[in-house]
């Protein structure tokens, strides 16, 4: 699936790899980029999900959203994992887009600067079901800690997702789902 061909408002089911990162992880990534340090993830082509999941409940056997552990038992892969408010990441997203991030997943509006940057760098901004962390956990097959462990749930995790529901919020042409007169009023 080519993200650049997606149209604003379109709903897709995505399968592949996404990385969680929110406020503090963004701050650190941008600081690292500015200092020319090595980054914990390759941002080129990366999909960033604004999310800090709840802790993964242990010892429960659930029908879906699980993986088989080594001994063949079903284990839960992640806790509740919905999107957080994207606009708080606006001040960092330009640097990440410059570094090659191809998609962001969150909820709510983006700044005009970021909308233009999405167009310039041919990226895409997705929305996913806000406040539906329990439901979204069902589409996560694997979760792996990648960096910034000291941030707790705000650390960067690599998620392998299957059929994760996404709605195109801003497409590669810079068209925004919120781009209506009523939104520009405030």
């Amino acid at each position, binding site marked *: 699936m080519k993200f650049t061909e997606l149209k604003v408002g379109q709903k897709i089911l995505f399968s592949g790899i996404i990385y969680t990162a929110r406020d503090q992880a963004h701050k650190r990534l941008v600081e690292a980029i500015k200092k020319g340090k090595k980054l914990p993830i390759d941002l080129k082509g990366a999909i960033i999900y604004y999310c800090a999941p709840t802790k993964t409940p242990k010892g429960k056997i659930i029908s879906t959203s699980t993986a088989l552990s080594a001994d063949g038992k079903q284990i839960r892969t992640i*806790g509740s994992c919905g999107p957080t408010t994207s606009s708080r990441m606006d001040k960092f997203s330009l640097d990440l887009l410059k570094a090659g991030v191809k998609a962001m997943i969150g909820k709510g509006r983006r700044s005009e600067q970021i909308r233009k940057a999405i167009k310039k760098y041919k990226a895409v901004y997705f929305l996913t079901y806000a406040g539906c962390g329990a*439901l979204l956990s069902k589409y996560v097959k694997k979760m792996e800690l990648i960096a910034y462990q000291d*941030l707790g749930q705000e650390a960067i995790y690599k998620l392998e997702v299957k059929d994760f529901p996404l*709605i195109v919020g801003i497409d590669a042409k810079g068209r925004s789902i919120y781009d209506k007169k*009523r*939104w520009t009023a*405030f």
Partner: protein
Amino acid sequence: MRPVSAEKITKVVSDLSIQANQILRKDVFFLLKKAYQEEKNKRAKDILSAIIKNALIAKKEKLAICQDTGLPCVFVELGQDVKVIGDLKSAINKGIELGYKKGALRNSVIKDPLSRKKIDYQPAVIHIEIVKGDKLKLTVLPKGFGCENKTQLKMFNPTVNWQEIKNFIIDTVKSAGPDACPPYVVGVGIGGTADYACFLAKKALLKTVVHYPSSVNRYAIRNTQYTIKKLEDELFKEINRLNIGPMGLGGKTTCLGINILTYPTHMAGLPVAVNISCHALRTATKIL
């Protein structure tokens, strides 16, 4: 004096924090289903259906309804004839920590607000009111910050008219727009002082949320209550005409309900506070 032990309080707060985070309030769930039935916008209907599914999964699989398990707020109504054996506040905080750990809920409390260091489960924000009687009422409200960030307070002049107050409340919802997980429940506090109006706005979210039929029987209830119900009804209708809709993508469901609490105020002013809740309005209460 009726004794209540700190251990008992800890146990109850622990249970309430899990209950609040995993089981959506009945009134809110009912209104979401009603909204789903009445919604015509296709995308709004799809999102409402996801929200309803989410609540069912959370309950069944003992998962948090939302990964933002909030800054835990605890409302205490302490009967003046209750004697707490032990430390009330630390009993509550201990209960929060226990419950959040047991329920695998997110530790979102930042101990030092400026350095942003030290992530923890508690302390909760605790509101204690002394009331008559020998009961102890505990309510846990995990308040997500996507919506808490949209709170507004305005100190009006005493000569303000209702229309101006209404505009302020509606503008607050408008400025939250799509960002704070609509459909919202709107809590409004009118009167008191600046801090007290903010407290009332938050407390209004604890009240059962209902749709007020326009034909409230004004003789069945006291006059001031009638006025407030009428105002709630007007606001409810106007907010739902904003067409923000679920996730801010349009639709007739922008607000599930609105609760207003009032308190006497000073002759020189009128504080009005608005506290918005996302669609996952979570509270759990127990009376000891």
